[in-house]
Structures are given as structure tokens and as C-alpha cells.
């Protein structure tokens, strides 16, 4: 018996030795960086059906991306996480697509015509469109995909189609008819839920749950393989209408949950770029000669939610006081290590109809104290803030704000809760103070306004604040075409918000991507999705 034991020990030691040596010899497990050869294919637009490129097999051009969270349900209609929706349009396409600056341009469509009354939107299709497997995109596919996205029983994104009455399609065009004029509709066909899917193939696979693991779309890439928790492997779609201009042959999206591990992978060259680096690393990573810091404007805003339903938070002067007592720049410096800008309102600068005349709440402790006294609380009061345990950012903000509010006599008790419970309290309005964040999902201000100021959507971020006048203004603005009248309404709504401050916007922060120096043309749109068609990883 001992002989066996000895053999086992010896063999295992040998294995460990061998693998360490193997490991040393090949420090990166990821595919090597690609060559600099450009595709020799012609620059003219190819027809939709293409053969394999006629050039000699060049070294494959691969881009490796490290993300902090894996996809959960990457179906265009049924998803609800950024980790899904930001990546869907790598392998799905629709009529339109977003550009880097939040405008829309044609994708599978050729051009769009809108009727004078704004009720009929006609999208003319490019000729000979096919899915990645070569099968033609039929009118039935369009109608099925769009109706599925519009069905209020499906998922949470159907509201983008709320104004739609019907959709029809034929070989040349897709036509939407609306119930009433709805200005943001120009963005609807560019969104991730408006992509076209092959109806027959989805049904043949046994439903969207099975289809989403081996999907067939019409996007610039194909999802070749998805190993949950590890990686998604995308390869170039030769049948994409614009395949000639897609620069990468393969994109490998690796999931690395741990922040330190993700950064280590980047430094070791195992990945070419990562998202969500912790802010405290920006300074030392900046100093790394192999890396570059990329920031992209986002609409992400952090704010403190106040439950307006009960005293003392039901008094607007109290809410104003709390806002004036906060040193937003200090928060940005401590929590984000300086990355971000103080919020002057609840909308992010750069968004459509942002009111740049707003003054916001520059730090003013004296004013805060006098407001409190005016409201009848000269000696302050007690408040309870719930945060999510283990969430570093919550903890930091809570700790710093507690100090700041102590200066005006407000005694804050911090109660950490497990995340499930925290969400529960939020949803059921059982809280006094919470911390939340918001990103726009469409480039139009209507969504943000709806969640923040229109009561029926979600009780104004569950603050319970309510204004009939605002509800009406927001509804009107949806119908107006873009122009000075619409702009005026949205600017006024922002002013009304600042006058009432139902919740306290703290700061905006950009998307942060850290990439190796040889990565060019990495794009993240303000809505969060990545545009990787034109990425280059030079030698």
C-alpha cells in the first residue's frame, strides 16, 4: 500500500513541477496579440453574401476584454442587466444603431421617412439582408421581433414601444404606426431590444432561453461560444452588411469578477482592456507606461434618496438644507479619487436639453443651518440611512455624509443591510434615506424625467414626491417634436426639481476603461454599450 502512496506522491510532485515550467514558458494563457496586417479585401462595400476573404491566412486579429460581470440573460427583450444589454449589439443588429455621441444612424435600414403628422415611421431596408448563417431576414422576422419587444408581458423594456400602435413589414421596408406623436421614437429602433431575430430558429431551439446561448443574429460578430462565468468568444460575421469595415477577427470577453485580479490580468497582458477599475488604482495605473486611461461621458449619477412622505423630510427646506450641507467635491475626491463632477441637478451635463443655468447646491453650511431653523429644527434631528453591506462606495459615502450632516445638527445612524433586504425596503418605501444611482437607457430626457419626477412610474424614485403639474408637463413634452418648445419644458422641469429636491443628486462620473497602449478606437457610448467594430490592437 505504501508503494502506491509513494508513487502517487511522486507523480503529483512531478505534475506540479511540469505545470510550473509550462506556466513560466507561456506567461499568457490568452491568444497572442495580432499582427498589424490590414485586411487585403477591397474597400468597396461587399454584397451581403460573401465568401471567405481571398487573402492568405493572416495572423488572427483578436481583442481581449476583461469585464467584471458575466452576462445573465443576454436576450434582447428579456434582459435587465448592463452586463447583458451593453454587449448584445456585438452580435445582434436592428434597423438603426447609436453612434459614439448618442445620435442614431442606419444599421440594417437604409433610410427613414417620417410622415408629417409624426404617426407613421417608414424604414427602408438595405437589399439582400441575411443573418450570420446566411439565411435571409424575412418580413416575418422583423414583425415577430419587434412585436415581441413591444409586448408589455415581456421583460421591462417594452415601454420604449409604448407609443407604437402597430408594425408591419415587407421585403423593402418596415413601417411603424404610432398611437400619438412620440418624439423619442427615433431612438427606439436603435436600441438593443429592437434588433431582429430569426423567428423560426428561436422556436426551433426551444425558446429564447435556449437560443440565447447559441444565438443567430445579424450583427458585426457571431457569438461562437459562451462558457458561463468564464468567457464569451465572438468571431467576425462574414455576412454582416458592413463586414468589410469590421477590423477584428475575434473578440474574447473574459469575466474576471475580482477587481485586483482583473487589473493584474491587464498588466500581465492577458487582457487588452478592462472595465470598472477601482478608482483608487487610476493614479498608479496612469503611471504604468503600458497602459492608457480612457474616459467616456456617461449619464451615471449618484444620489441620496429621501423618503418625502414623513417629517422631517416632507419639508422642502429640510431637504434643501441637507443638500447644501454636502461637500460634493470632497465626496468625489475620497470616493472616486477625483474622478467625477459635482451634480447641479438630476440630469447629467451633455444630455439633451440639459439646463446649464442651474446653480445647484454649492457647499453652504450656514445656509443649511438657517434653512433648518426656518423649518423648525434649529437643533437638528435624527435620521437613519440604510446602505448595502460590503458595498464599498455606499460605506464611504455614508461615512463622509454622516460627518457633513453632523455639522448642521443632523445625527445620522448608518444601518447596513444585506442587498436583498435593502432592495426590498426601497421597493416597499420602508426607508428614510438610501443611496442609489441612475443611468439613462435612451438618449432622450423623457426616461430620466419619468423615473425621477413622474409619480406613476416609480413614485419618483420611491421618494413619494408628487406634482400633478409636473406629470402633465412631462406627458406634453413626450408629444412635442424636438425644438425650442420641448426644450423649454425640460429645462423648466429641471428647475422645478432643484426647487423641490425630492432626492439629492451628488455627482456624475464617466465610464472608466483602462486599456493597453496598443488598443485604438475603443468606444463606449453614453448609454453604456460598446462599439467594437473598429477597434484596433496594433503590435
Amino acid at each position, binding site marked *: 500500500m505504501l508503494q502506491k502512496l509513494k508513487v502517487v506522491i511522486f507523480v503529483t510532485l512531478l505534475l506540479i513541477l511540469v505545470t510550473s515550467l509550462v506556466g513560466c514558458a507561456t506567461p499568457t494563457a490568452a491568444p497572442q496579440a495580432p499582427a498589424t496586417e490590414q485586411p487585403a479585401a477591397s474597400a468597396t462595400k461587399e454584397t451581403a453574401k460573401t465568401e471567405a476573404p481571398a487573402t492568405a491566412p493572416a495572423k488572427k486579429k483578436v481583442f481581449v476584454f476583461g469585464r467584471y460581470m458575466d452576462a445573465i440573460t443576454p436576450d434582447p427583450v428579456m434582459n435587465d442587466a448592463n452586463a447583458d444589454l451593453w454587449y448584445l449589439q456585438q452580435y445582434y443588429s436592428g434597423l438603426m444603431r447609436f453612434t459614439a455621441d448618442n445620435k442614431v444612424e442606419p444599421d440594417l435600414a437604409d433610410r427613414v421617412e417620417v410622415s408629417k403628422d409624426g404617426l407613421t415611421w417608414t424604414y427602408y431596408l438595405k437589399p439582400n439582408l441575411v443573418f450570420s448563417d446566411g439565411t435571409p431576414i424575412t418580413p416575418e422576422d422583423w414583425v415577430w421581433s419587434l412585436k415581441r419587444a413591444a409586448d408589455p408581458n415581456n421583460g421591462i423594456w417594452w415601454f420604449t414601444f409604448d407609443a407604437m400602435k402597430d408594425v408591419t413589414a415587407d421585403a423593402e421596408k418596415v413601417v411603424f404606426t404610432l398611437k400619438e406623436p412620440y418624439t423619442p421614437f427615433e431612438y427606439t429602433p436603435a436600441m438593443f431590444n429592437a434588433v431582429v431575430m430569426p423567428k423560426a430558429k428561436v422556436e426551433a431551439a426551444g425558446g429564447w432561453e435556449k437560443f440565447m446561448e447559441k444565438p443567430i443574429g445579424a450583427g458585426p460578430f457571431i457569438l461562437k461560444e459562451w462558457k458561463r462565468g468564464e468567457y464569451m468568444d465572438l468571431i467576425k460575421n462574414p455576412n454582416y452588411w458592413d463586414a468589410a469595415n469590421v477590423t477584428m477577427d475575434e473578440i474574447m470577453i473574459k469575466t474576471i469578477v475580482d*477587481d*485586483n485580479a482583473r*487589473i493584474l490580468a491587464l498588466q500581465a497582458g492577458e487582457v487588452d482592456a478592462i472595465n470598472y477599475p*477601482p478608482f*483608487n*488604482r487610476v*493614479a*498608479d495605473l496612469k503611471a504604468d507606461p503600458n497602459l492608457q486611461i480612457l474616459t467616456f461621458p456617461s449619464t451615471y449619477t449618484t444620489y441620496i434618496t429621501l423618503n418625502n412622505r414623513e417629517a422631517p423630510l416632507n419639508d422642502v427646506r429640510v431637504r434643501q438644507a441637507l443638500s447644501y450641507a454636502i461637500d460634493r467635491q*470632497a465626496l468625489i*475626491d*475620497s470616493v472616486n479619487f477625483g474622478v467625477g463632477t459635482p451634480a447641479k441637478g438630476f440630469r447629467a451635463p451633455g444630455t439633451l436639453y440639459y439646463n446649464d443655468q442651474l446653480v445647484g447646491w454649492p457647499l453652504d453650511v450656514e445656509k443649511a443651518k438657517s434653512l433648518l431653523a426656518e423649518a423648525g429644527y434649529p437643533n437638528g434631528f435624527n435620521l437613519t440611512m440604510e446602505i*448595502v*453591506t*460590503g*458595498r*464599498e462606495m455606499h*460605506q*464611504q459615502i455614508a*461615512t*463622509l455624509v454622516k*460627518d457633513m450632516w453632523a455639522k448642521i445638527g443632523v445625527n445620522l445612524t*448608518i444601518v*447596513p*443591510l*444585506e442587498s*436583498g*433586504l435593502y432592495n426590498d425596503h426601497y421597493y416597499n418605501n420602508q426607508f428614510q434615506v438610501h443611496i442609489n444611482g441612475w443611468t439613462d437607457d435612451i438618449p432622450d430626457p423623457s426616461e430620466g424625467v419619468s423615473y425621477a419626477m413622474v409619480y406613476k412610474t416609480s413614485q419618483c424614485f420611491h421618494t413619494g414626491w408628487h406634482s400633478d403639474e409636473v406629470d402633465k408637463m412631462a406627458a406634453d413634452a413626450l408629444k412635442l417634436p424636438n425644438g425650442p418648445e420641448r426644450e423649454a419644458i425640460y429645462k423648466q422641469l429641471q428647475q422645478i426639481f432643484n426647487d423641490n429636491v425630492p432626492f439629492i443628486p451628488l455627482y456624475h462620473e464617466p465610464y472608466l476603461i483602462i486599456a493597453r497602449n496598443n488598443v485604438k478606437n475603443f468606444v463606449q457610448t453614453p448609454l453604456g454599450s460598446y462599439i467594437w467594430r473598429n477597434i484596433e490592437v496594433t503590435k
Partner: protein
Amino acid sequence: MTTVASLHVPSKPGLYQKLTSRERIWYSNPSLFWGAVLVGLITLVAIFSKYLTPYDPITQDLKNIVQAPSAAHWLGTDQYGRDVFSRIIAATPLDLQIGILSVLFPLIIGIVVGTLSGYYGGLVDQIFMRLVDIFVAFPFMVLIIALIAVLGPGLKNVIIAVTIGSWIIYARIVRGEFLLAKQLEYVTAAKVLGYSDLRIMVRHILPNVISAVIIFGALDVALDILLAATLGFLGLGVQPPTPEWGAIVAEGRTFMVTAWWISFFPGIAIVITGGGFALLADGLADLLRTGGKEA
């Protein structure tokens, strides 16, 4: 009526006898010695922690964040500018408390249940053994995390959760000892002589049982401190800004590369404390088995 002089029941030399015997057991048993030294040291630090912190462990100093260890801050500062050394010292009584209470409560419950089950046997014992089967096969971490999710995080609830999760182990040990002891001659003799059950249990059997349990308990203190630290690491334990070793390690995790000292030093504190108790347990076990010298 005949009166019987109290029966002199011979029992194995228990822990207490050995520890107080004149034999220089301490020197031939380095585990016991060093374990006691470390535990004693930690206990002293815990008792006098208020006087040993050069800085207030909670006050922030945003001008001095993430400073490396220096003369001013022996173990550096964290991301809020708080002195790491002071925080570690301040956390000592808390972690020690967690460790000891997390053992004390299950121990008491376990002794009661285990005694009843082991001594009386029968149906009580059968039910108990079924319970043991179920608890043993239940993933421990799941139970703890689920309990804390229900009760909420924090010191008190961690202790409650760990008590619920571990009492059965103590009960099982106690029961085992009772089963063994039941068969010994002196117990039979005592029964024949008409001593009440309670008296037999308490005076004759329990002392031996206690030794076994204390040895395991010392080790368990180490494990529970680790568990509390792990829960703190997951965000489910003691909540910031109250210093607790595991929570401090968690706080420093995002800074591992730029400010390794935040996570490193509390870990050392855990190792010293946990290791100290483990050494103590090891030494006690050794003592009991060999009487302090090689048999």
C-alpha cells in the same frame, strides 16, 4: 438503616489536576506554553485596548489617507486616514468577545442536550442522532449566511447564527463521552448504591466530559474568530466603522496593490489570536493524553 460513607469514585486525572500539578509540564509542552503566552498577550491587549491606541480608531483624517507605515503611523493609515495600528488594537476586544461567546453559548446548550441524550439514550438519543445527520449534511456557510440575512448583520446576530450552527457539535462530543462513561464500572456502582441520576451525571461523569469539550472549545474559538472575520470580509459581520479584523481586511482589499498594509496587518492579528488558541488546544490535548511527559 445503614448509611454508606460517600463512595470514593476513582476518576482519571482531569485537566484541572494536571494543570495544577507540580510537574513542570509547561516546559515539556511548548504548544501549551506558547499557546498560553499568545492568548494571554491578546487578552491583555483586549483588556487595556483603550490605553494602547495612539489614535482614535474611528476619526477620519482625509488629508492623510493611505499612508505607508512610518514613525507617525506604525502600520500606516487606511483610505479614511485612520491609523491602522489603532484600529487593530481597538478590534481586539471585539474579536476576542466574538470568539469566546461563539463558543460559550453552543457549549452550554451542547452540554445540556448532549448530557440528556447520552445518559438517557432511548428515544431522546434517536431523535438527537437524526438531527445530527441533518445538521452535518447541511452546508454550514449556507446556514450561517441565510440566518444573517434574516436577522441582519452585526455582532449580536453573528453570535446567534454561529450558536445555532455549532451547538450540535458540542452536543455530539458530550454525548459521546457520556456513552463511554456510562459503561464504566464506577458508574454502575454508583447507580447500584442509589445515587440520583443528576448526582452521577454532575459529579462523576461531567468532569471528564468537560476536559474533552474544553479542548475542542479552545480550537473552536480560533475557528470562530476566523469565521467572524470571513463574515466581515463578506460584509455580513460587524459593520463599519466599528473596527473588526475581518472587516478591516475587506476594506483594504481594493487597496491590496497600492496600500497592502491595510489588509495585511489585521490578518497577522487573526493569525496570532487564532494560532494562539489552536496551540493552546493542541497543548491541552497533548497534556491530557500523555500527562505531560512521554508515556
